[in-house]
């Protein structure tokens, strides 16, 4: 797929796939095009070319609301919760297009007991980690076939980041398919089955999470080891 803003191409021909039940991480530096790619998959940014398929069905160009009812649910960067509303109201909105939302909310609250304790609390007063939890829980109420996570670690303390990633890993064991976009390469590759490395709109590396963590280029660019030096 290709996409961009105005006449600026941000994603210059990228192919990727996520299999059912997998966690796939997309890592890359600031401005590599990670969020744009995610927005395009969620239907928030029109694709310039290429196709997006869900279960073999072409969903290219479908508006975001239709994507959600088909099961493509995005957890945006910075969480995007409704800060003035209660935890419960946030969850209800997450199930806006889900007829069985009450059942789904019950199930999600079982999954996140902390949110059940705080279901009447105003969302904006939750801690950062709890807000991230709420954002993910709200997405789960939408019964996603694939959950798109945009930078879940942004603005969180390292210890909380660990918790969030544990949570993501736990979701996978419940059968949720996850596409995770992250700058935090170590954490993202640590929980991923597979990963892609995006650099200025192109995938430059692809492989298992473990292989990517061992890749010298990834180490150099994202894990801060060594510097660039080409043998001539």
């Amino acid at each position, binding site marked *: 797929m290709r996409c961009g803003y105005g006449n600026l191409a941000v994603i210059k021909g990228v192919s990727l796939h996520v299999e059912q039940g997998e966690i796939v991480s997309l890592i890359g530096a600031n401005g590599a095009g990670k969020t744009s790619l995610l927005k395009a998959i969620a239907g928030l940014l029109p694709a310039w070319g290429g196709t997006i398929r869900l279960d073999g069905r072409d969903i290219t160009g479908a508006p975001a609301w239709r994507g959600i009812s088909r099961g493509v649910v995005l957890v945006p960067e910075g969480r995007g919760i409704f800060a003035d509303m209660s935890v419960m109201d946030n969850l209800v909105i997450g199930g806006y297009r889900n007829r069985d939302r009450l059942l789904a909310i019950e199930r999600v609250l079982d999954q996140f007991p902390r949110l059940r304790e705080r279901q009447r609390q105003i969302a904006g007063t939750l801690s950062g980690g709890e807000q991230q939890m709420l954002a993910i829980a709200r997405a789960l109420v939408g019964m996603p076939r694939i959950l798109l996570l945009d930078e879940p670690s942004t603005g969180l303390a390292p210890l909380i980041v660990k918790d969030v990633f544990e949570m993501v890993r736990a979701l996978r064991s419940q059968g949720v398919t996850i596409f995770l976009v992250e700058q935090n390469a170590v954490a993202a590759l640590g929980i991923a089955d597979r990963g892609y490395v995006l650099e200025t709109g192109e995938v430059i590396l692809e492989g298992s999470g473990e292989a990517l963590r061992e890749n*010298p280029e990834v180490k150099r660019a994202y894990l801060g080891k060594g510097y660039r030096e080409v043998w001539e």
Partner: protein
Amino acid sequence: MTVFEPKSEAMRLDLLEQVQLERLQALLARLRRNVRRYREPLGEAQVTRLAEVKQLPFTTPEDLVEAFPYGMFALPLREVKRLHSTAGPLGKPLVLGYTANDLRHWGRLAARQLVSAGVTPNDVVQIGFDAGVFGQSFGYLTAAEQIGAPVVPQDPVHIEHQLEVLRNYRTTVLVTTPANALELVALLASRRIDPQSLHLRTVLLSRPIDQRLRGALGVGLFAGVRCTFGIPEIMDPGLCVECEYGLLHANEDHFHVEIDHGELVITTLSREAMPLLRYRTRVACTAARQECPCGRTGLVLTPGARMDGRLLVNETPVYEAQIAQVLAKTRAAGQPFRLDISERGVSVDIAVSQECFGDEMRVLANLRIDIEAEFMARLGIQAKVHFVTTLG
């Protein structure tokens, strides 16, 4: 268990195509960024479908010679964990680099072949390769370690010692070259040793051989004979896996295979240190997609002869032109000669004038020793030199 990585080896074809496309796109991006030799020919070329690979430029063995030693590397040298050398066109040296990930992939790909040949952690694997293809032994070594089978790395120069190890260590799987296997058969026969007294179950050979030879080796060593096929510049072993039905399945998750005018053309999809785009292997080959009861979905390769005149003498790659070059560097330079090249050695007839055979016999005998030593030193092959008056 006969398939080591069923998820990759028996991948659904639509998924395989997707994986190949993704890896190819990433490969192009890396080549453009990191390898100067590819930057210009590639330009802004992009592939959106796998079929578009046909529009990309080829890489030839001559390109590798030109880029010697490190011009094809896509990473700084210090990221490369191992360097192997191999022979390029006309015997010119080439360097092959491997990163830590490359080595791990190499081991896993070779392990696919070992597992397909029935190797389990209960086996004792003995590896004996001739000097000319010595590099391959490291692939099998890593592979056996990854499977968890005890492994005996061995040099086959001392064949008596090899046989001793074979008997005493109760080796069950022997990985070797056809030449070495034949030598072992001859040794067993000359020692009146019953091959059944060995514990050998499987012999895995480094290159394909014909059915007749396969049968003879099977009887001579009293073991099942399996062959694999590889291209050293690409990864050998590792390009393909011979299944229990005798078909060579390409490992397509790591290599994209094309046949261009009967020549095998390979793109390495996952190599980090030395990725090659559409590498012309100079090996004649056919490829067919066919269903196999073993479950593997990779293209079935049927390799043929070398297309560049490369010969194998005692498993060492040799070109006829190289032999002439060696002769030109000796005192017999300029004399007319005739070659007889066989799989076991080279026989050279050099024409000298009648007078030499009288008084100069000693000189000729010394010259013969010199020339034979020169062949061993420069090419690593045994040569038999004869002086004749006329080339019949």
